[in-house]
């Protein structure tokens, strides 16, 4: 059991590290190592080895890796903390008035909301074999998305778990799923085709946090029949050759027809990302994040439900996602036990991104927020006190603040109380409290 538990802790640690919380991750790796000293991954990662895909995430998300410069640099990110801080240090420091460095406030992306831009969020991309090259695919014909690399060469034969699109019913290859362009009673006589294939997990290390059981890979074959479709975009070369001229017709009872919402219009059948490649997809069949697959359009609602309940890899993927949430929550609980509430909140937020309506996630988040708020407010002191800025203007500009902390600081003019600041900040109470606690900790403002 301890080995499993250690593995789970490593999983959670990878999540945390990918999201930028190296300190929280380090704690989990260390804990995993304690439980299972033979866990090589834990040993490797606790020694500072990069998490697979870590650099990619940072590059892809545009997020600068957290530096830990002890010297405040004008304009640098505020409240950075050292990597080697001990578990719970940040929260304890804030609660007890220690003078340690302060973690970055994880506030809402207000700037993003205002500008219409979104603050980059670390995105966990699936890892694929190194010989695969990135492919550009078009989503609904109007967006182009860089997907992780697909196989450069098609396999000689389809391996287990293959979802294939064939140009017509006469050319079906062996496979377990087939998607047809028409949702009629029988398979269409002709169609363009694409193949969605699910391959077993490659042997190279992959972040199990994203695709623990298998990597999703999709290949597309574009038909050139008389269906009136245009040629595919040049950016999506066919990975397979044309399907055989006369493949055996699929079994109507088990076939998965896919009418890719294009219906019969003339829009070219553009390659669609695998459900697993769709960022933030809640499940493989989440229509919001994966609009190309509509169960109702496959074989009707009843049939679709049957298919969902069947033991397919897709449904197992949804279950895996739930498992991921559970793993993350366990990691969060571990951090809570270690008094690292800030790190725990980051994990909880990750879990909430995967399962927004999960009652357990919501409950844990509420509990953690309450605890954090109490800690920050105890740091702030009496709320009816009027705080004062302890630094001069020319000292303030050398601080390491972000615009939110700058806003709160600008409101402190010797007339408003801490209580007033909660009202005027325009942020949630916990975010305001966090900033105030941090400003107090940095010696920027007086305590209540």
């Amino acid at each position: 059991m301890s080995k499993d538990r250690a593995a789970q802790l490593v999983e959670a640690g990878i999540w945390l590290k990918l999201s930028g919380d190296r300190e929280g991750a380090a704690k989990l790796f260390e804990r995993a190592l304690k439980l299972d000293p033979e866990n090589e991954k834990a040993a490797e990662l606790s020694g500072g080895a990069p998490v697979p895909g870590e650099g990619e995430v940072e590059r892809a998300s545009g997020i600068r890796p957290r530096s830990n410069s002890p010297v405040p640099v004008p304009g640098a990110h505020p409240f950075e903390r050292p990597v080697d801080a001990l578990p719970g240090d940040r929260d304890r420091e804030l609660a007890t008035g220690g003078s340690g460095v302060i973690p970055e406030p994880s506030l809402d992306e207000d700037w993003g909301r205002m500008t219409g831009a979104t603050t980059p969020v670390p995105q966990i991309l699936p890892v694929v074999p190194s010989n695969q090259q990135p492919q550009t695919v078009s989503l609904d014909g109007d967006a182009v998305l860089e997907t992780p690399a697909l196989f450069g060469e098609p396999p000689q034969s389809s391996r287990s778990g293959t979802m294939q699109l064939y140009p017509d019913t006469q050319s079906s290859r062996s496979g377990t799923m087939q998607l047809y362009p028409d949702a009629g009673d029988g398979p269409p006589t002709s169609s363009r085709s694409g193949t969605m294939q699910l391959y077993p997990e490659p042997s190279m290390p992959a972040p199990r946090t994203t695709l623990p059981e298998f990597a999703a890979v999709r290949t597309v074959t574009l038909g050139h029949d008389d269906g009136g479709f245009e040629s595919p975009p040049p950016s999506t070369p066919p990975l397979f050759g044309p399907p055989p001229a006369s493949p055996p017709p699929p079994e109507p009872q088990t076939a998965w027809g896919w009418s890719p919402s294009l219906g019969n219009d003339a829009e070219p059948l553009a390659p669609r990302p695998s459900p697993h490649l769709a960022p933030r997809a809640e499940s493989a069949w989440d229509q919001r994040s994966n609009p190309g697959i509509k169960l109702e359009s496959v074989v009707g609602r009843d049939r679709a439900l049957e298919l969902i309940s069947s033991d397919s890899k897709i449904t197992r993927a949804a279950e895996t996602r739930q498992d991921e949430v559970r793993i993350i929550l366990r990691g969060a609980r571990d951090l809570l036990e270690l008094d690292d509430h800030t790190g725990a909140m980051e994990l909880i937020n990750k879990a909430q991104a995967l399962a927004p309506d999960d009652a357990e996630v919501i409950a844990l988040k509420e509990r953690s927020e309450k605890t954090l708020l109490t800690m920050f407010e105890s740091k702030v002191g009496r709320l009816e006190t009027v705080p004062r800025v302890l630094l001069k203007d020319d000292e303030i500009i050398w601080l390491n603040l972000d615009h939110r902390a700058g806003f709160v600081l600008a409101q402190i003019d010797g007339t408003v109380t801490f209580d007033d600041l909660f009202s005027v900040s325009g942020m949630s109470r916990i975010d305001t409290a966090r900033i105030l606690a941090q400003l107090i900790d940095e010696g920027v403002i007086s305590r209540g």
Partner: protein
Amino acid sequence: MAAEREPVIGIDLGTTNSVVATVQSGSPVVIRGRSGVNLLPSVVAVSKIGKTLVGQIAKRQAITNPTDTVYASKRLIGRKFSSTQVQSSLPSLPYSVEAGDHDDIRVKLADKRYSLPELSAMVLKELKLDAEAYFGRSVKKAIITVPAYFNDGQRQATKDAGRIAGLEVLRIINEPTAAALAYGFGKNINGKIAVFDLGGGTFDISVLEIGNGVFDVIATGGDTFLGGEDFDNRVINWLAQDFEREHHLDLRKDRMALQRLKDAAEKAKIELSTTRETQVNLPFIATPASGGSALHLQKALSREKLEELAADLVQRTIEHCAQVLDEARVKPIDLREMILVGGMTRMPAVQDAVKQYFRRDPSKGVHPDEVVALGAAVQAEALTNEASDVVLLDVTPQSLGVAIAGGYVRRLIPKNTTVPTAVTEVFNTSRDNQTTVKIMVLQGESDVAHENELLGEFILTGLRLAKRGEVEIDVIFEINSEGLVSVAARDRETGQQQSIQVTASGGLTQDELKQILDDQADLLLEARAGEEVKLRQAELDSLVNEVNELIPQLQKATQGSEFGTDALAKARAALEQARAARASTDLNVVTTSVDALTRTISLFKGVLQRIGR
């Protein structure tokens, strides 16, 4: 010893800022707010954490919380939702405005709908509390000022606001009249004067004729969307555009940055009234969307630049002045005095423009932000002080009349007529064989019927068949001392009569007003009960600490005796009860626990005393 006279206050309920004043030892003085400043921003908000905010604190979060912050509600008070003025204002209002049950206006804040009088009442209540802190006693009587162009409905709504705030509004007076009263306090002024009022959100220019103590507003005009905020916006745009050129980032799109820009722009503008140049420093104003370092805004603004940015705004005020003087058939040279009102008139460019147009120096010596409130205080003192030799008369603020053929108005009672009053005038039918006549009661100064406020209408029927002009109808207007307007129409031949009584409505019905007042009373009781609970909870905390300190002493003193064990068990039960009571908001529960702990402490102390410790 004679009883101390009840305090009375004068309130300038402004569009942007409000001020309260009183007369002390014969001189009008402004009452400083509890926060130490004289001006209270007329802003009401419900913060994101659900707290109701009024004044400066509400203003400071106006941009970051625009949907739940109400400012410039004075532009809407007493108006009908369907009116052109309201409908044209709606697109520019960030808060949600809805129609009430009687075409009145409701504003949605958080999850609650408020009438305009309720919102204004929040501002008035703050001023009342400031005055009560100043006097150290309850304040109930007030005079409130309103713009000269306010009709009866708007005045009534302001009165309703005062009532909701717990004030007896002795009188509503015109702002320019109040300014003139303050300026003329202790002086004997006769002749025509102009009041140039450039406030935070509105500009009013009024011409008054003062003679034998009677203040007659003979013309008024202006722009309800021209004020200090427009000057601030020019500075904001200048700063933001310059920043955008440098950093490719529009600060106006970020609410936090915009709030800081606005505060800084206003501060810089004020400073430039007394200095030639000022620095705008806004560290950490924004973080680029792509991440990276927070950026600072540092820029110098000169008076010349500000004047250049706002030159057209100043020019607009002068254009309004020319228009109003033209309407009043007064030339600048005819004016005896020029009174400046409103903080924006401190700007040298505004003073220069006024001086150039009116060809005289504006009067100095009255504080432009405070002059209206001071005038209201002077009038309040005159009303309540029997020793005062000033006689004040209630007058009609606007003319009253009826609509006549062709879409025009026949005025029966001109504005500034002293009430009570009654007027009768004979009208004739305008068509052959006209058997009915519609009497439309209008208020306003326009000769065109539809440009006036319709106060009410009724139909007189049963007129005899006759050629046009042959049937004569008496129309009788009466205003009693309470301001109630009665209008009757009587057929001279038949004596048949119809009538209507017009009561000014501020949008709230009497029932609604009563309901609001009842709710206020309940809230007050709740608030008082809440304060009592807090006090008792604090007492409880203190007693818990005391018991916790005594327990070890008692344990040591009784050495595990039966009596000691029993006493300690009771004490622990009392502590347990206190823990539960601490979380309760029920006064009885908290009080019971306080009593139990008090008894425990008394018992412990008694035991310790007896055994000599």
